[in-house]
């Protein structure tokens, strides 16, 4: 039992966070709760603070909208939080699509799809930054926030709170894509929101830290990591994982049985 907890504690915490956030939003619309109202695009926390999705606001700016002061402050709050503290934590701790892609990835490992797929697809993880740039261009040309209009994240999230419609199809598409077409396809290659948080989250203080002297080179961490390229230092050097693409999901910390990985603050890690 203790072993199970130590091998899954961050996974359980993350699922708890993701589902609670969804549930609080859902309760706000269904039963008039006041803890978290709105949705991931923009919400009111405890009737007091307004927070907004900075990427959505950026697209609206590109589209030529007049941004209200409220939205601007809300977007700045979120940006500062992930910039200073969270890193790319939105992707693994908040985003509802994470549960979909994690499931696809789990099944891939379970059925050994990764080895069956033969030669690696020549697809760059940098596509997301191109999609990010493209979304701003399309927003500017079309005069409306382009990604918000097609985002499966918003569709699913909004759908759970306000009514799903055909939104479930977008989750199925992503699930099938990640399961059969490309490992870590959506979250690790395409999603511009993930790209956006990779860019702003690369300087945050909460980081995974690798202690090389404890490492037994079992490579479990690299197997489960959705952005395995960020763990290049495993077994080589004691370093903190400073790549912005790391989602701070801490699955690597969970699966490590040798205490070679843990969370640390960037400053502390560098002093050691």
């Amino acid at each position, binding site marked *: 039992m203790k072993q199970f907890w130590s091998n899954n504690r961050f996974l359980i915490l993350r699922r708890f966070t993701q589902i609670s956030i969804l549930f609080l939003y859902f309760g706000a619309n269904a039963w008039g709760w006041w803890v978290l109202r709105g949705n991931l*695009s923009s919400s009111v926390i405890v009737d007091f603070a307004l927070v907004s999705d900075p990427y959505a606001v950026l697209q609206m700016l590109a589209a030529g909208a007049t941004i209200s002061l409220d939205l601007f402050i809300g977007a700045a709050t979120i940006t500062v939080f992930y910039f200073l503290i969270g890193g790319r934590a939105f992707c693994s701790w908040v985003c509802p699509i994470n549960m979909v892609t994690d499931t696809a990835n789990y099944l891939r490992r379970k059925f050994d799809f990764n080895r069956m797929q033969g030669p690696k697809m020549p697809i760059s993880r940098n596509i997301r930054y191109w999609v990010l740039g*493209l979304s701003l261009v399309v927003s500017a040309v079309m005069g409306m926030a382009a990604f918000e209009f097609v985002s499966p994240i918003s569709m699913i999230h909004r759908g759970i709170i306000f009514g799903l*419609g055909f939104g479930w199809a977008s989750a199925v598409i992503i699930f099938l894509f990640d399961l059969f077409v490309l490992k870590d396809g959506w979250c690790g290659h395409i999603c511009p929101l993930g790209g956006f948080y990779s860019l702003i989250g690369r300087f945050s203080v909460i980081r995974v830290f690798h202690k090389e002297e404890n490492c037994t080179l079992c490579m479990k961490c690299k197997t489960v990591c959705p952005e395995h390229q960020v763990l290049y230092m495993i077994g080589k050097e004691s370093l903190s994982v400073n790549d912005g693409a790391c989602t701070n999901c801490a699955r690597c910390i969970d699966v490590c049985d040798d205490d070679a990985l843990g969370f640390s603050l960037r400053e502390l890690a560098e002093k050691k």
Partner: protein
Amino acid sequence: MPKGKREPISDRRKFIFNMARGVGVAALGGFVWSAYINEAKAQKLLLRPPGAIKEEDFLKTCIKCGLCVEACPYDTLVLAKPGVHKPLGTPYFIPRDIPCYMCTDIPCVPVCPSGALDLQSVVTDKKLDINKADMGVAVIDEESCIAFWGIQCDACYRACPLLGKAITIDYQKNERTGKHAFLRPVVHSDPCTGCGLCEHACVTQKAAIQIFPRELVQGKAGNHYIKGWDKEDDKRVKDAKAIKTTTEISKNSAIDSLNDSGDLY
């Protein structure tokens, strides 16, 4: 060079090819993406919440957070979900299902964080005034409205929150029976807010009075028509500047120009 072996492709060519490929894929994606958005936002048949700014700006400005939907006590407002063929995630309402009940405290507007619902547009003398809302305008189909048949019905008139202003009753003698009256409802588009209480109340199988976006059903006479009998409107004549145009008259005689058909065919 040995036969059958080709020169290796230079790094420079590979680089140029990869750049071209990136640009090509981005253009492909961009056009498909834009085309989809263009189609999806073309839907004009939808009614926005009170205080909504112009549709074009609304689509830019609304962040799709749903706070107006949550604020609405009657569940009138809904967010467009995939499959309903409306701009995704934006709020709208269908008056035949649930109309806008014209709350005097207008809870849906002040909660809007983005300014897509403009509080100032529903304020008179620093007080909230829902009667300034402009969600659409009621249109009566005289063919299916039973009041126009001569059957007595004033459901829409009674339901109208601006009774006697937005809808009035026009009395006419019913020549068919010779002893009854037509009580025909008439919509006055200026005071009409488009709340849809009339459409909701309409007794016919499919509502004979329906709300449409103002842009869609209202015409425009244009500046060159002036109501001379209306003193306010007549002032425009005095302020107007005449535009004088002169057409140069041809120096050739009319006969000449008709006969000069050398290269006409």
